[in-house]
């Protein structure tokens, strides 16, 4: 199907998220504005104004009532999705690089940037899923990350058991989400190659990380063991897992603008790449952006995916029949065996 181009941002996109029902897309960019869109037709639902700096991150709770954002103005904000009302602002000393709701929507985490004497911090707040309730200012958990390099991405595991963080040096760490104690730390990506994204499977028992080392890796949440590795030919900014029954991962990236000598789109490798999740093989590419892809997100219902680019556009692609039909011979063989 023809992709839908969401051109509402004036600057590079930083993160795009689907609502848990898959009907909305929330996008944040460096232009200080949060946008909400209908995923089906690309119409804009609304914008959320208030941030004073570039936005780095956005997330929405499971009932699509609360929206959390964070950005370079060193605040994390909570919004009413329906009305666009600002419900709560948390202030910090450095910018917020990542926000994420837990799977039950009862907790929210924020990661602050390590900069000029400030360490990376992870703050966790208990959230009341009610737009009229007064949200707490006091974090229920505060982790100061002093042993490991800068935290770039973070998220809650299934059952809010762990917090998983990705770091600037390519390492992944696992923390107890109750006590804030570090449980495990692995170096799965190439040393010194920043972990650029971390996205969960539907049940949050495994996750994918992307890195500047041109690979994306699938990890087991419990053991942090690397299950699969997807090798690309360009630094990656984002990686997403498609929901069952389709077994793909989508990777996005591209030569950063400062590293490109020509502006040729061919050269930049600004494509979304589809890999088979289990066989680790590339199965397809989608072109269109003329800048690196900063984020890719998949509709939880599996109907479409969207990508936010450095070029300021969000592209929503609804999957075509071949996406649903494509199967490896061994998969077919297995299905035939079942019946």
């Amino acid at each position: 199907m023809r992709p839908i181009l969401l051109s509402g941002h004036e600057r590079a996109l930083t993160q795009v998220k689907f609502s848990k029902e898959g009907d909305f897309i929330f996008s944040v960019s460096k232009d200080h504005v949060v946008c909400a869109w209908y995923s089906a037709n690309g119409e804009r639902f609304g914008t959320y104004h208030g941030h004073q700096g570039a936005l780095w991150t956005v997330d929405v709770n499971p009932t699509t009532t609360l929206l959390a954002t964070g950005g370079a103005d060193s605040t994390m904000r909570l919004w009413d999705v329906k009305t666009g009302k600002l419900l709560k602002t948390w202030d910090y000393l450095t910018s917020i690089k990542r926000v994420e709701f837990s799977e039950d929507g009862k907790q929210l985490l924020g990661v602050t940037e390590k900069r000029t004497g400030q360490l990376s911090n992870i703050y966790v707040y208990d959230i009341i899923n009610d737009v009229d309730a007064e949200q707490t200012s006091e974090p229920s958990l505060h982790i100061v990350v002093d042993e490991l390099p800068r935290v770039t991405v973070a998220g809650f595991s299934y059952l809010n058991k762990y917090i998983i963080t990705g770091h600037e040096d390519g390492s992944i760490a696992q923390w107890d989400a109750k006590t804030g104690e570090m449980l495990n730390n692995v170096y799965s990506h190439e040393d010194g190659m920043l972990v650029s994204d971390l996205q969960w499977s539907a049940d949050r028992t495994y996750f994918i990380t992307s890195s500047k080392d041109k690979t994306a890796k699938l990890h087991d949440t419990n053991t942090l063991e690397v299950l699969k590795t997807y090798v690309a030919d360009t630094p990656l900014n984002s990686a997403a897992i498609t929901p069952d029954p389709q077994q793909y991962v989508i990777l996005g990236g591209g030569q950063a603008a400062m590293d490109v000598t020509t502006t040729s789109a061919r050269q930049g490798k600004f494509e979304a790449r589809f890999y088979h999740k289990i066989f680790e093989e590339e199965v397809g590419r989608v072109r269109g952006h003329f800048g690196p892809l900063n984020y890719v997100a998949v509709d939880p219902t599996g109907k479409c995916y969207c990508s936010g680019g450095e070029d300021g556009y969000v592209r929503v692609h609804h999957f075509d029949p071949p996406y649903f039909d494509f199967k490896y011979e061994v998969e077919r063989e297995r299905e035939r065996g079942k019946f």
Partner: protein
Amino acid sequence: MAPSFEQLDPETEYDDAEEIDYSDLREQYEVRMEEGLDTFIVIDGLPKVPAASKDKLVKFLLRKLTTAGKTKEENVFMPMDEAGEMSEGFAFVEYETPAQAAQAVKTLHATPLDKKHTIAVNKLTDIERYGREGRIDETYKAPEIAPFEEKEHLRWWLGDDDGRDQFVMYRGDNVGVFWNDKEDQPEQVVDRQHWTESFVQWSPKGTYLTSIHTQGVQLWGGPNWSRQKRFMHPGVNLVDFSPDERYVTTWSHRPLEVDENNPILSLEEDGKNYIIWDVDTGKPLRSFVTLDLPSLASDNEGNPIKQKMQWPAFKWSADSKYVARMTQGQSISVYELPRMNLLDKVSIKIEGVMDFEWCPANPQRDNIKEYEQLFCYWTPELGSNPAKVGLMSIPSKEIVRTRNLFNVSDAKLHWQSESAFVCVKVDRHSKSKKSLATNLEIFRVKEKGVPVEVVDSIKDTVINFAWEPKGDRFVLITAGEVPSGSAVPPKTSVSFFCPEKAKGNAVGNFKLIRTVDKKNNNAIHWSPNGRFVVVATVLSQQSFDLDFWDFDFEGEKDEKDKDLTANLQLMNTGDHYGVTEIEWDPSGRYVASCASVWKHRMENGYHLYTFSGQLLREEPIEQFKQLLWRPRPERLISKEEMKQVRKNLREYSRQFEEADVAKRSSADKAVVEARRQQLEEWLAWRSRTVEDLVEERRDYGLSDISEEQQALIIEEQEGESKVVDEVFEEILEESEEILA
């Protein structure tokens, strides 16, 4: 109180040392102290003169001595015999600096003064070092011959069961050698980090892999890739082999600075740029300095523009018997191997000579039985004399053929690989010097009297020309005039030529087969066996196409081509973004196109095609620098055997195809099996984790799926996809039973 250094008994300190005999080590590592005598030289072999004419002799000597450095009469000491009447025939001279003394030794040694007297000039310190008693053994001792060590088999790679070819690849800091496995990943033979410092190169027959280092050049070979030879040449930039791999030329832009204690190089090499080495012994044969080209043009400020250096400057004859270098505009010096002596002790004077090329194979001229090698050269118009192209036979130095040319701007010499033809590509300007056109002057070297055929039908300048190897057809590329200030290079045309059909074995006149216009091509790469040619656009920003042509297409031949010895057909076209080099494998089965990081940083790596242009693999490689196929030595099978093979080609190819099919099916099976296993493992892991998760959730008293996933299900129930359970009751049979 701890004993201080002064209080230590000197005896005890040195006791241990005394017991060990260090004399051998001392001798070995003896440091030559500045003796203050480095400025002195000794002149021997002077005439013995009476005291009266001593001053005259000294004055005579001084004239020579001052050419090397500064000295004066008081510093020349000429001892007299005991009676003080006659001089002893030698003299001591003091220079101002040791460098001047060294220079004097270098330049004045073995200079004849007159017919009877030749002076020997040595450093005073050398006389001390070598002349002192006991320093040099008086009795001859036979040199020790090291026991024979078996070398590795240097041509082992030719014995591959599948007849595969090897290539070397240099990327990042690593150099690796691989077997080419068609569409499959190449099989690695060896991979070493920092194997070379600038580039790698195969020797012409593929025996050695050459690596370049700041200290010199090393050759590697054999199944273990052990070092076979090394040639010390500090700062070496380029290396060139003789065709038989027996000699190697190294060159550095920096003149050599040789220390006199250097174990390999002698003072002979000091200040030189080129060294020609004997590969077997690893010793230098002779060294040369770079000749600066006389600069024709000068830049805006009047400084001469440095011309691009010709490489190789020392060109080898086909049989490696001769190596020659041109002094542009003057002469060609031919050296005989292995002694490296100048042929007949004089350079061959050719006024104005611009370029020369040896024939690439031993020439077979009609009715010439004696041994000879040929080279072709050209001279530009000088005054009222026309430009000339000549063929010279060596060692006789006889000019076999010359041809006069007019209005010549430039000329290039192209030998056919079997020395049957030499084509001189002559760029000619019109009388007004405005427009350029190219003529081809083709010398038929094997035919009686070396007739010359002229192809003058070409309107534009020819920018590239290539003979078919082992054949008599050629391809050329012409480019139109460039409008000044235009950033886009002009469109090019590719023309294909072949001889007309002729009776017997004769080669007919060269005729144009076809011209393809409006191309961007600039490179011609023939298959090493001829017939197939790749015409490509390399090192271009805009286009990067590869055209694969067949000269002997087996299909229907065009009516108008019926008199030609070719049936040209475009087989395939390819496209490799940013292609910089094209390399045929030595068997002519595969072509690799490379995009090297040395030229640009975009999409570096290589593509592999079959000879017919079918793409086998695309291999993007980070920091890809070089890919070179390992050359093969010439075939050993006879012409008859080759004919036999060609006759039974169908039979052979059937065998190979069978082997290919078997290999492919087993490879496919392996892939499928691996996938099956991956799928099983994944599904097993999933069912395990899902089970664990559900169990854990139940322990917490939660529903089986999370709120997040719940969101999806709610939608399904609210939306159109709502599941409605309807219960139907159907009466299949009714029976009545009456109970009594």
